[in-house]
């Protein structure tokens, strides 16, 4: 947490909060809400004003509430929220990593969340995605814990905090439910009895599916409330295809040295688990977190062609989890047998040469 707070203290270095990423478009309605006491469904500031305020409102309302309660400026409050995000991010990853693969994975995930540059770029500025990205690991942890009310509530909160984060979160939840649906079909077709673990996976998948449904419905509900319609594809981001294609280097160039290798180890661990039988729900969720991120950064290949590069930071979340699994597995398997096997293999290679 101290490491994350240090990296996020970048937000405090200038005389004013960062302006990259359109931070002002949130600070303006926050100030308006604080000064008038009304959260306007009309955007009075963007592109001349007089248009529906399509942005989901909870980040703005949260910062405004803090300004009203603490009496600090909108600007100071916005920067303070970044520091709160800095504290929440490793905490969320610790909880999720621990639930998925044990305490060691939780600790690795907490530290690794400080590594991806894009994850820092999108959480170090006073933006809704910063808060939503810190909530995603916690929401997923609550799903794995089968905390129905809390996970549905936090999913709703994250959806109402940021759109792209919402899309990633429901995609991960849907992916988890889809994996388990495949297992259920296999169990049905092969007429096998379901194990205790299969029942557990089914219960978690049902909750993930409900979270997905609540998330999708609440976003469409909000959009309908402010625009009177549900046609998301008519938004400029879709019509004008805002976004740039993402290549191999765009992803790996911002991951540092550790994460690619350890994530590869994590992927091998998950593949080995899948080869032996069904992975547990946490491992399926980790796979879904990576696969959902890959689909979203390559959404141009499925015809959407929108904001591809922005989803790298979300894919980073899956990669952090995968790398934590890889690191924890390596640490737990540094025993006499594996060391002897490694030494023998190395001796064979070097003696042969």
């Amino acid at each position: 947490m101290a490491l994350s707070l240090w990296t996020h203290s970048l937000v405090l270095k200038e005389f004013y909060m960062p302006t990259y990423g359109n931070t002002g478009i949130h600070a303006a309605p926050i100030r308006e809400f604080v000064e008038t006491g009304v959260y306007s469904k009309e955007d009075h500031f963007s592109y001349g004003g007089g248009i529906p305020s399509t942005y989901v409102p909870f980040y703005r309302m949260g910062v405004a509430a803090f300004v009203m309660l603490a009496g600090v400026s909108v600007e100071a409050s916005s920067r303070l929220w970044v520091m709160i995000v800095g504290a929440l991010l490793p905490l969320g990853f610790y909880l999720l990593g621990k639930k998925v693969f044990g305490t060691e994975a939780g600790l690795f995930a907490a530290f690794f969340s400080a590594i991806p540059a894009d994850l820092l770029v999108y959480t170090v500025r006073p933006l809704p995605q910063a808060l939503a990205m810190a909530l995603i690991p916690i929401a997923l942890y609550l799903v794995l814990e089968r905390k129905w009310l809390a996970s549905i509530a936090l999913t709703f909160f994250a959806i109402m905090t940021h759109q792209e984060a919402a899309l990633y979160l429901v995609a991960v939840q849907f992916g988890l439910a889809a994996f388990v649906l495949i297992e259920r079909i296999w169990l049905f077709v092969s007429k096998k009895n379901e194990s205790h673990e299969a029942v557990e996976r089914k219960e978690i998948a049902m909750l993930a599916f409900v979270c997905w449904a609540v998330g999708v419905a609440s976003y469409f509900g909000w959009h309908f409330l402010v625009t009177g319609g549900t046609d998301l594809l008519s938004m400029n981001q879709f019509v004008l295809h805002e976004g740039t294609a993402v290549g191999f280097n765009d992803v790996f160039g911002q991951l540092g040295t550790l994460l690619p290798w350890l994530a590869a180890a994590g992927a091998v661990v998950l593949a080995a688990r899948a080869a032996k039988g069904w992975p547990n729900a946490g491992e399926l969720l980790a796979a879904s977190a990576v696969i959902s991120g890959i689909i979203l950064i390559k959404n141009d290949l499925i015809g959407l062609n929108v904001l591809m590069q922005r989803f790298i930071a979300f894919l980073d979340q899956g990669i952090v989890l995968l790398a934590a699994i890889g690191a924890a597995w390596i640490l737990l398997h540094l025993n006499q047998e594996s060391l002897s096997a490694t030494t023998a293999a190395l001796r064979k290679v070097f003696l042969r040469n």
Partner: protein
Amino acid sequence: MLSRTRLETAAAAAFLAIVAFLLLYSDVPKAVDAASPWTNTVVTQKEVEAIYWLENNTRIYEPVVYDIFGGETMMALSLRTPPIGGDWAVARDAVDRMNNVTKFYETTSAQEAAEIMKNLGAHYAVVPSRQVHAGFGWKTVEKQKFSDQTFFEKAFDNGEVMVVRVK
């Protein structure tokens, strides 16, 4: 020869040391270096002075021509409305507005700049000394045209930033 437990412990410690070294001395500093430019303010303290002048001398939601970074800072600090900047998801004529504001700052013609302001419904414009971004890259401001008193008058000037009023 090391005992089994000591060997395992040493291997685990070596693994953790490598992870910690790469984390703290390579990967995290690289992430901070990459993120640092994104925390830039772009707008200067002198521009903030101009924004506060607008807050004190114009009405709420007053249309004021400014680039994207300045406009968004202005809306955040003073609730004044720029012609560009903000959430363009459902903005009807966002690209036309970007074109017009780019032209406003780039043209050498005072008459053309004044017409653009009037078409945008704005009486005031902010003229910073830095390069501006109105949607099509960073552009240098042609400041000379604002000295033409046929079309503009200076409403505020702190040596770095001007607020001009169109006649």
